[in-house]
Structure formats: structure tokens, C-alpha cells
């Protein structure tokens, strides 16, 4: 059912909904930007319509809402492990189509890679519902159309924002608070981005000797430019890697915690093994590893590309490295390699 709401009505709806759901949306945090005196657009819990930022892309993706940056897996008391409880209140996340597609990529790793499902991811993920914000233009660095992620197959709710009114299409009945009634029904069709300013040509690796790509000169540029800060990893909606971290929480060393925290393939130490062996020591090699994962080898396992073209990695890179440009460079190299044949 679709309903047209005034800004004020939408505000009241969110207040009513917050009795049963925690609602997350892009918000503005004053002076929290990496640059002094600038604001940060990021995800947080909202209780009113005024808090929601409709017109800008969030710096971080919404993944941290249900896949925290750092999470305690269990607390040890001596030899006994206790798994901490999590808030069981359902969550509603307002997000754009690219991000909803990105969450599908996280699901592939945490649910479908290997035989085990990830307990910690699953217990939060199953509480999450999605409200898709209609996105018809995107932003400068977006390339969702090239990645085929400008559209969504399904959603629990969709929102069209038009300044003074908001149209809601609610598929999940539990998102209508008890006793709450909307006005007249509306026809609803979600529109999508049809063309981005940034376009990407996906490399076709079919029949190409990958040694020619891996050993190519192009990666050296990234060895000199990339500073391995890992911002592209932490801002990415599809980066799922983590590292275990144990800590003692008392002086007697009887109490301890095992935690996991986000890890990134660009960051030093990602492949280090005890005893001194490591792989991909050059930053260009890490760029190659990430690129191949996002637009080549993930697809071999799951039949879809990992990258969803949200463009956040380009937005956050302090060295102005463009991931979309690097994909296009690889596509060009592939064409040259095939031409030489």
C-alpha cells in the first residue's frame, strides 16, 4: 500500500514506528568531518523526519548498523565463554538501492560462503528491514548503472521524497504501527537512476592470462599513490573482512574478551603470518587484489560482482585515487592484451 504523507505526518509516523522499531538513516553530525569545521553525513538512529538527510550520500555505509566496527564475540570467565546478548528490537534502515544490493553481497559472504553461517552477523541481520529511498540521479562518483545495482528486486518499504511530501510504499505490514491509519492510497512506482556521470566498463577477463594483468605496470602507480590507510575498505558497503582480537579485562587475567574488528586488504598486516611471511607488501598489489575481488573473482563464486558502484571509495580517498578509473584502466589493458593475441 502506498500513502502520501506531509512532512509533519511522516514525522508523526516515525515517532509511532519507533515504539516497535529502531529507525536508522543518514544524519548530519556537526564538525565531525575529517576536515576541520565541516559536517559529517553518516548513519545513526533517528526519531524524527527533520533528522534525515535526503540529498547527500553518507560518508560511511549503513553496514556498521548490523555489522559493528568492533564486536565482542564472547566474554571468558576462566574457562567458560559467555555470548553477549543483543538488542532484539527490529531495525529499519533507510538506504539507496546500491546499498541494499551491497548488503546482498555481505549476505553472500556471511551466509553462503563455506558451510557455516556467521552467528553474529545472522542474529542482527535477521532483525533488519529495509526502506529504499528513491534515487533517480545519484552523485558525481556513483556508477551503479554500470554495475547493474541501480535497481532493487524487493524491499520492506520504499520512500519517495519530494521536499514537502513523502510517499511511502509499505510491503511489510509490521511497519504500520498498531491502530495507525494513513490517508488515501496512492499509485506507486519506484524510479531508478538511468544514467550516472561516472561510467565504468567492466573488464572481460575471458580467455586472458591473468599473469599479464597481475604483472602489469599499471599497479606501480598505486604503489606510489596509495598510502594504505584503508578508508576505501571501511567506507565500502561490501567489504566484509575482519580480524580477531583478544583482550584481558581485569588485572588478574581471569576475565577476557574475544572480539572481532573490521580489517582491510589495503591495510598493513592483513596477510602477515607469525614468523614473518606476508603477501602483497606493495600497495599497488593490494589495489590489484581489491579490484580483482570487487569486479572479477567474487563474481566467479557468487555469479554477481561484489562492487555495487556506490563510489564511496572515491569520495573518501585522501590521495584522490578513483576506483572507477582504475576499473576502466584494467578494461583497457584487457582489450590491449586481447588485441595483441
Amino acid at each position, binding site marked *: 500500500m502506498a500513502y502520501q504523507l506531509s512532512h509533519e505526518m511522516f514525522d508523526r509516523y516515525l515517532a509511532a514506528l519507533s515504539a516497535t522499531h529502531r529507525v536508522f538513516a543518514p544524519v548530519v553530525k556537526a564538525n565531525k568531518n575529517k576536515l576541520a569545521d565541516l559536517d559529517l553525513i553518516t548513519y545513526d538512529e533517528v526519531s524524527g523526519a527533520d533528522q534525515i538527510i535526503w540529498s547527500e550520500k553518507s560518508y560511511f555505509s549503513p553496514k556498521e548498523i548490523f555489522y559493528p566496527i568492533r564486536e565482542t564475540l564472547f566474554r571468558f570467565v576462566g574457562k567458560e565463554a559467555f555470548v553477549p546478548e543483543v538488542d532484539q528490537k527490529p531495525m529499519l534502515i533507510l538506504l539507496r538501492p546500491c546499498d541494499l544490493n551491497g548488503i546482498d553481497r555481505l549476505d553472500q559472504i*556471511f551466509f553462503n560462503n*563455506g558451510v557455516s553461517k556467521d552467528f553474529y552477523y545472522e542474529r542482527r541481520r535477521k532483525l533488519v528491514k529495509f526502506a529504499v529511498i528513491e534515487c533517480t540521479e545519484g552523485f558525481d562518483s556513483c556508477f551503479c548503472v554500470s554495475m547493474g545495482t541501480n535497481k532493487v528486486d524487493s524491499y520492506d518499504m520504499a520512500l519517495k521524497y519530494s521536499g514537502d511530501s513523502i510517499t511511502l510504499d509499505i510491503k511489510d505490514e509490521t511497519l504500520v504501527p498498531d491502530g495507525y491509519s494513513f490517508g488515501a492510497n496512492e499509485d506507486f512506482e519506484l524510479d531508478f537512476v538511468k544514467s550516472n556521470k561516472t561510467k565504468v566498463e567492466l573488464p572481460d577477463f575471458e580467455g586472458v592470462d591473468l599473469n599479464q594483468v597481475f604483472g602489469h605496470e599499471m599497479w606501480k602507480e598505486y604503489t606510489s599513490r596509495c598510502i594504505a590507510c584503508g578508508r576505501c575498505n571501511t567506507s565500502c558497503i561490501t567489504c566484509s573482512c575482519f580480524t580477531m582480537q*583478544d583482550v584481558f579485562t581485569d588485572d588478574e*587475567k581471569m576475565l577476557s*574478551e574475544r572480539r572481532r574488528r573490521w580489517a582491510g586488504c589495503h591495510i598493513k598486516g592483513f596477510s602477515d603470518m607469525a614468523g614473518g*611471511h606476508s603477501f602483497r607488501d606493495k600497495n599497488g*598489489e593490494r589495489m590489484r587484489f581489491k579490484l580483482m575481488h570487487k569486479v572479477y573473482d567474487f563474481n566467479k563464486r557468487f555469479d554477481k560482482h561484489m562492487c555495487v558502484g556506490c563510489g564511496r571509495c572515491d569520495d573518501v580517498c585522501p590521495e584522490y585515487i578513483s576506483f572507477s578509473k582504475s576499473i576502466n584502466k584494467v578494461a583497457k589493458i584487457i582489450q590491449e592484451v586481447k588485441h595483441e593475441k
Partner: protein
Amino acid sequence: MKNEYLAFPFEILSIVKETEIDWTYTVKYDGPLVGGQFMQLSIPGVGEAPISISDFRDGSLDMTIRKVGRLTDAIFNLEAGDSLFMRGPYGNGFELSKYVDKHVVIIAGGTGLAPVKNVIEKLTSGEIKTNSTRALIGFKSPDDVLFEDALKRWSQDHEVTVTVDKQPDKPWNGKVGLVTEHIPTLEGYDIEKTEAIVVGPPMMMKFTTLALLKAGYLPQNITVSFERNMSCGIGKCGHCKIDETYVCLEGPVFNYTTAVKLLD
């Protein structure tokens, strides 16, 4: 929902000091295992790491651990009767049925001997009936030799070559030189039908497999085992991924024809 990350305490039954820094921990364990698999081993508050299972039998398993970091430093402070935390086993392990009625050569470097110890035991004891079983094992120096008793036992009925990298200062009964220098001595049988297993540090595996190919071994008859940084063992953490392959899921044991395509 099963929580695969939960680690449980297992009692240490005995500790054997193989070298100054490589100790074998035997822990109480019941359950099916395959040689070449690994455990996620941990001490609460200190850390967790993948450790290969060097041997196993009814009621217990062995892990040969080198003191190289924070976690292994803490493990070296434990004594028999203490507990190690484990979850697993993970990884595919070696498919031993393929070695029945074959000539088999096992080449191991240093601690790389640990993940194949059980394989060598099964092949030399006759539990897996091969046509012949030979082992070529390299260590840095005589002080780094692992499993001395087992080496003696294996060499009673089988051709076992133990070599150290450089001419040692003290008396040494074995050979001298890198394992690659001794590969020519592994001739004598129909090389094209001989199966080879290569496990060791990345450089050793690279040059050993190249030397085997040069000697006439067929790529499809070479098996290798990889070692990688891992935080989960179940295909989630991403540390061990090479291309589309997860070493913890599809490995750590790979046929050379697959391994050669894995570009780090």
C-alpha cells in the same frame, strides 16, 4: 543457530620439546580428523590462530607449535594438565586413497613437516599401502630437526633423506644443502607415475615444485599445502583468500594444477 566461533578447552596430556622453539602438544581429543587439517587454537585474552594438526590417534591429537608470537609465547608457558582452547577441525586435508599402489615422494621444509607427519605415518606404517614411500626433509640446521624418533622409525624400511641448509659445525649424519639440491636423488622409479607432496615455506614450495617439474614429475601428481593468515577458518574473515579461492575452505591442501593458478 550454531555459533562456530565458540572455542572449547581441551586438556594438554603431554608436551614434547622437539627443538628449542618447536614443541609438540598432545591434547585430549575425540572426533574424526584428516591429516593436513588445522584447528583454530586459542588462549582466552591472548589470541587465536590456525595451527596444523601434526598427528592424531584415538583419544588425542598433536600440534607442533613454533614460538613465534604473542599467542605461541603464551602457549609455551602452559604445562601438561592445563587447557588449550580449540575449534575445528577445518580445511580439506590430504586425500590418502589416491596414494594406494603408487610411488609417493614427500618433500617437507622445516615446520612444513608438521602438517604431513600423519600422512607419512600412515604411508610408512602400511595403513595406506603404497608401492614405495620416500621422504626428503630439509631443516635449517641440526638444532631444528623435528620428530627425531619418527624420522628414525620411518627410515628403517623407507628411503628418508634428511638435509640441513648449510654444513653444520657439529657432527651431522644427514645430508647438506637445500631440498631442491636433493631432488635428483628421487629418481629411480617411473617419475611420470610418482605422486609428490610438497609442504614448507612459500619460497621452498615454489622452487621445489619447479625442480620436480624439471625432473619430469607431472603437475597433476604434485600436491601442496598452503599456510595463510586466518581469523575464522570458515570462509568469512577474508584473510586467506587468493583470487576466488579461500584457503580455509578449498585448502589448505591443493593439487599443483590449482595451486599454480593462485596468484597472491
